[in-house]
C-alpha cells in the first residue's frame, strides 16, 4: 500500500549570522493512511522544521516529501490542516470568526452544520461570541482544533499543540483528540517533547536525536484502543517511557552497546 505521507532523506540547513545550522539531517519516514504518528524529541531537534516542511510552509535543503504520491512544494490547504503551538487564534476575532477564518481565505461558503457539530463535541457552543483572551488555554486550543477540523483535511499536522497546557488539561485534550480522530480517521503527525503524551496517543512513536535532527528509533505502540488515562500508570507504559527517555538522552547512539 502506498503511504499517505512519504519523507525521503529530508535535510534542512538554516543560514544564520553565526553560520549554517543543521536542523534536520537525512530524515526518512512513511506515514500510512489513518495512522497517528508522534514525533518525539528534545527542544531544537528539528521537529517543527520537519512539520513546517510537511505542510509546505518552507522548503527542504535536500530530500523530498510526497503526499498521496505527489511532492509537497507549497501549502496544500485542501488536504492538510495545521494546528500550531499555543492556539494561534487571531485576537481581534471572536471564537466563531476565528473558526470561519479558513473559509474566508479559501473563499468557500461556511459549513455551519459541521462547525456546530464540532463545537458541540468540544463543548464550546456557549463561547462562540467570546474573544480569545477571555478563554482558558485549553478552550483556545480546542477552538483551534475545531478551526482545522472544520476544513475536513485528510492530514492533520500538530506542532506541540498541548505543550503550553497544564498536565490535567493536557490529558483532557489528548482524550478529546483521540475521540475526534476515532470518528473521522485522519492521518495525524503529532510533534511533542512529552514522552508519555507521545506513547499515549500514537500508533508509532518516532524518536529524534538532538541537533542535527535525525531519526533515532521508531517504536510501535500496541496499547489497545480506546485508551484511558489509567494506562499511563501501568508498568509496561512506565518502562517504555524510561526506555524512550534513555534514547532521547543518548541520541540513540549507545543502542547497539546496550542491546
Amino acid at each position: 500500500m502506498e503511504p499517505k505521507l512519504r519523507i525521503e532523506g529530508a535535510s534542512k540547513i538554516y543560514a544564520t549570522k553565526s553560520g549554517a545550522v543543521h536542523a534536520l539531517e537525512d530524515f526518512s519516514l512513511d506515514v500510512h493512511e489513518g495512522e497517528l504518528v508522534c514525533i518525539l524529541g528534545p527542544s531544537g531537534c528539528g521537529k517543527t522544521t520537519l512539520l513546517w516542511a510537511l505542510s509546505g510552509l518552507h522548503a527542504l535543503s535536500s530530500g523530498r516529501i510526497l503526499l498521496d504520491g505527489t511532492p509537497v512544494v507549497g501549502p496544500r490547504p485542501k488536504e492538510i490542516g495545521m494546528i500550531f503551538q499555543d492556539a494561534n487564534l487571531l485576537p481581534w476575532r471572536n471564537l466563531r470568526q476565528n473558526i470561519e477564518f479558513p473559509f474566508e481565505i479559501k473563499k468557500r461558503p461556511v459549513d455551519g452544520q459541521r462547525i456546530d457539530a464540532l463545537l458541540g463535541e468540544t463543548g464550546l457552543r456557549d463561547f462562540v461570541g467570546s474573544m480569545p483572551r477571555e478563554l482558558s488555554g485549553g478552550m483556545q486550543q480546542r477552538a483551534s482544533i475545531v478551526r482545522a477540523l472544520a476544513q475536513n483535511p485528510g492530514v492533520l499536522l500538530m506542532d506541540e499543540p498541548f505543550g503550553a497546557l497544564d498536565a490535567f488539561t493536557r490529558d483532557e485534550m489528548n482524550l478529546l483528540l483521540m475521540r475526534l480522530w476515532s470518528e473521522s480517521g485522519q492521518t495525524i503527525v503529532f510533534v511533542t517533547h512529552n514522552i508519555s503524551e507521545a506513547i499515549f496517543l500514537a500508533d508509532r512513536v518516532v524518536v529524534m536525536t538532538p541537533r542535527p535532527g535525525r531519526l533515532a528509533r521508531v517504536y510501535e505502540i500496541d496499547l489497545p484502543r480506546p485508551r484511558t488515562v489509567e494506562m499511563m500508570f501501568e508498568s509496561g507504559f512506565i518502562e517504555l517511557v524510561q526506555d524512550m527517555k534513555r534514547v532521547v538522552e543518548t541520541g540513540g547512539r549507545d543502542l547497539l552497546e546496550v542491546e
Partner: protein
Amino acid sequence: MSELRDEIPSFEKRTTADHGPIDWTGLTSIRGARSTMEVGSIIALFALVFFGLELILRWTNTPTYVFPKPIAVVRTLANEFTAVYAHHLWVTMYEFLAGYAIGSAVGLLLAALITQKPFAEKVIAPYVLIMVTTPMIAFVPFLRLKMGFGSWPLIIAVALAAGPMVMINSATGFRRTDLAKIALARSYGASTFQIFRKIRFPLALPMIIVGFMVGSIFGLLTAVGGEMVAASESGGLGERLVYYSSLARMDEFGAVILIIAALGVSIYVLFYFVGKRWASWEA
C-alpha cells in the same frame, strides 16, 4: 510529566491579556460615571470651578481686559455663536478636515508601502523624523507668500503636520509581524493581499488608530496656530484669537477658546470610541 504545573485547569475568564505597546487605559479611565454619587461629584466640582472663578473675579474687581468672567464668556458665546463664531469654526474645520484627510491618507499609504521594503524604510526614516519634529506652523508664512490668501497654505500645513504622525505610528504597526499567524493564513493558501488584509492590517490597526489620534491633535494645533500666524482672508478661530486679544476684547477671546477646547475634546472622544470599537482586543 516534566511539564506538570501547579495550576488546576479552570474555565474562569483569563484576566491577563497580552499587552501590546499601546495602553488604552488612559482613555478608558474617563468612561462614563457609574453612580449618582460620581455624577454628583463631577457636577459639583465643575460648578465649584466655574462659579468660584466668577466670585473671585467679582470680589477682586478684576477688570475684563485682565481676565474675563466665565458667565460673560458663556453669554457672549451663546449670543453670537451663529452670527460670528459659526463662520470661523467652519473655516478652521474646513482647513483641518481637508488637510487631515489628505495627510493621513498619504501617511497611511506610505507606511503600508514602505514597511514592505526595510531598505526603503531606512532611507526615508530620517526625513519623516525631521517632518515630525519640525513645527509645520513655521512654513505657513512662506506658503502664504507663494500661494496667496486662500485656504490652501493652511490645508497643506495641516497635512504636513498630521501625515508624518500617522505614518510613523502606522509604520510601527505594520512592522509588527507575527510569523505564526502569517503561517496560519499561508497554510490555508492565503495570497499576499489576503495576508495583508486579514493579518497584517488588523494587527497594525491599534497603532494606526493611535497615529490618527496623534495626527489629529497635531493637525488641529497647526490649523489654529497657522491662522494666528497668517490666516486666510476668511479668518478662522486662530485669527479671531489674535484679533480679540489685540483689542483686549476678552469675553470674545474666552468664547473662541471655549470653541477650540470643545473641538479638541470632541476629536478625543471620537477617537476614544474608535479605539474601543476597533482596538479593544489589545487592552
